[in-house]
């Protein structure tokens, strides 16, 4: 039985699917790095992703164009996160509750919209997914090729967002402003930066990333929409942000870790092996708690985390 595991083929397909499974975790996590760095904890990522999944699928189905589908996912993801922004920034509502509420509402709205658009059908409507792009030359390298260079375009783009996110946060004035409103909003305000405006944009970016990741699930991973399609990936993305202590590079590691755990679990189950793979799935969460403890100690968490800003309150 164990000999099945230690074959090269198994290992290669395991690692390749680790990368594929990591993508829809990595992308929303990168988005949430923006949002959380600006001081907003958006627990509603799960709902945003579900909205992105249904809108991405519907748009792709109706237009017959997958790229427009992704765009649809992004736009609706942003619109949905606008609700969160409005509640948490303008109304200064409790972010935890707002996030939970938007998750419940998002799940309901997504499923409802799907029903209204597609009605009840015997066979679920499907789309042709993004095809696999073999990177010339690289994909021919044995072992390395199949693991890293035989994925659909969105997987590549998703990982490309890692340096892009890092660049925006570390090298641009906008990134500096985002970090400033999460760290010391009063100082930012006194320097003429509109705290609300920056926080809104940070939440919207998070929404765009999450919406894209939701659409990824329906038109690049599966080829249809189901109620439980996001399956907790939104919450995992939040864990990854904490796990990575808000650093894009590390969030890639976090997403790969979660991706690996679920890939391994799926493969083992397919082989009918029931060793303690649930404990394996548990591991990333335990590591997230440990990371949180470390992050608190090193004061890496934005000082204004989850705290609304008001100029008049001290």
């Amino acid at each position, binding site marked *: 039985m164990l000999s099945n595991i230690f074959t090269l083929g198994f290992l290669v397909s395991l690692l390749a699917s680790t990368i594929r499974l990591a993508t829809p975790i990595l992308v929303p996590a990168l988005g949430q790095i923006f949002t959380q760095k600006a001081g907003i904890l958006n627990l509603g990522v799960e709902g945003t992703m579900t909205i992105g999944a249904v809108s991405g699928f519907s748009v792709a189905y109706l237009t017959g164009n997958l790229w427009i589908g992704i765009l649809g996912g992004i736009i609706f993801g942003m619109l949905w996160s606008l609700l969160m922004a409005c509640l948490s920034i303008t109304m200064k509502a409790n972010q935890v509750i707002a996030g939970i509420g938007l998750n419940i509402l998002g799940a309901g709205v997504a499923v409802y919209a799907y029903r209204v658009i597609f009605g009840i059908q015997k066979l679920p409507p499907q789309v042709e997914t993004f095809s696999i792009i073999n990177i010339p030359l690289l994909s021919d390298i044995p072992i390395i090729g199949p693991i890293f260079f035989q994925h659909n375009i969105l997987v590549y783009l998703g990982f490309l967002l890692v340096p892009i996110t890092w660049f925006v946060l570390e090298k*641009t*004035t906008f*990134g500096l402003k985002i*970090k400033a409103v999460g760290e*010391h909003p*009063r100082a930012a305000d*006194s*320097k*003429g*930066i509109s705290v609300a405006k920056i926080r809104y944009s940070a939440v919207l970016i998070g929404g765009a990333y999450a919406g894209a990741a939701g659409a990824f699930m329906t038109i690049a991973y599966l080829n249809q929409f189901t109620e439980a399609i996001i399956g907790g990936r939104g919450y995992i993305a939040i864990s990854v942000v904490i796990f990575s202590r808000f650093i894009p590079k590390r969030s890639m590691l976090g997403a790969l870790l979660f991706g690996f755990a679920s890939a391994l679990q799926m493969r083992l189950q397919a082989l009918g092996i029931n060793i303690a793979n649930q404990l394996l799935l548990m591991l990333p969460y335990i590591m997230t708690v440990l990371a949180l403890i470390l992050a608190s100690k090193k004061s890496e968490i934005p000082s204004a985390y989850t705290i609304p800003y008001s100029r008049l309150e001290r």
Partner: protein
Amino acid sequence: METIAVKMEKITKSFNDVKVLDSIEFKLKRGSIHGLLGENGAGKTTLMNILYGLYNQEDGEIFINGKKENISSPVKAISLGIGMVHQHFMLARPFSVVENVMLGRKSRRGILLDTKQTAEELKTLAEKYKMEIDPYSKIWQLSVGEQQRVEILTAMYQGAEILILDEPTAVLTPQEVDAFFETLKEMRDDGKSIILITHKLEEITSIADEVTVLRDGKMIGRRAVDSTVTKDDLTRMMVGRDVLFDFPKNTIEPGEVKYSIKNVCAKNDKGLPALKEFSLDIRENEVIGVDGNGQKELCEVLTGLRKSDSGEIILNDKKMVNKEPVYYIEQGVSHIPEDRHTTGLALNWSLKRNLILKELNKAPFVKNGLLQPKVIDKYWNETKSEYQIKSINGEEKARALSGGNQQKIILAREINLNPQVLIANQPTRGLDVSAAEYVRKKVLDARNAGTSVLLISADLEEILQLSDRIAVIFDGKLMGILPRGASTHEIGALMMGKKQEVASCEN
């Protein structure tokens, strides 16, 4: 060329209907250091916040370099060449120095940060004023003094010609102060105009060219600082009267020493020493007034809210050092805290509940594990009439009351505990005259009932009026103890750091 950099005319400002600035006149000469002197709460910071665009004045006009300006925001102030260094630094701790400087500035590289260029210019600027700083070090790695340098540099980098410094030396060690003053002189000689907010006379005489004194929101006077100005003059302007007469004689004389603070050392929030080998004895039936820096930390150490590094506190022969706050409450140490909004009261709780805030566990308010509304009601009604608290039925939130009524709730709660020791920190701050008078009377009543009272107040007049003896702290050390009826001259001398020459009159 206009020689007056800033002119403020008839500036008036109120908070919650209390006038905190009343028709203030202020003039700053270009290329000078101007001291803005006054006690805590005199309105110095408020006036400067108006100049910096953080508050808007209700009335009055501001002229910068002779031109009338409407300074609606700090951004506007910065564009007019005004920079301000607040007491609480506006620095993001995980950021590097240069990142803090770049924040909110237009980058020369469009959307990209111009980190390198800024860092180099910053270095040049720092060297010019002999302020050593590494542009790439993170703020949290810097000492408080260094952080202050970053704030000043930021202002200079933004092109500040007029620099406002709010109590800048409060966070510095004596050695740092010397270097800091050198920098200020350097800047002045460079043509910058500097406003130095302070309540320390010494700083005025040692560095300022001119001084404006505020007291209680009013402008008292403006003087050139030359050989004719004495510290006594300034003390008189700051405090009001020279000697205070006319307070009621206490009929009960103080008794034996009941409460001793022995060689207590403690640090402030920034980790700097706030109390240095501080000692004080308080007798039965005695009020000791305390003036000077380090009051806040003293209060907190005495009530268990702050840990001391060494020393002892003894009440009735019982040592109480670094215990939980509840221990002090149980031993009979009552505390009227400085900030009634965040500490003294639970603002969203009813008045009744606030009244028994420290007795939520105790009989008769709790019986068989349940609170007794009837007992509480009865107690409330008695207290309400005794302390003349204005309230409908005690169910309204503490938030809804005026400052005076809020303070009465605290006073009633603390005094009704029949304390051995009462620590009253700024008990009348922000109260109107009659409420303040009432609070003072109650404090004296407690004294006469045998309580040892430690009165901390920025209001020197209040201290002189109530205290049997006056302890002056300077720089965390006890400078001396003065008897009742001491003149402000004597107090001023001690406050300036001149140690009492004659042995104090401790009994």
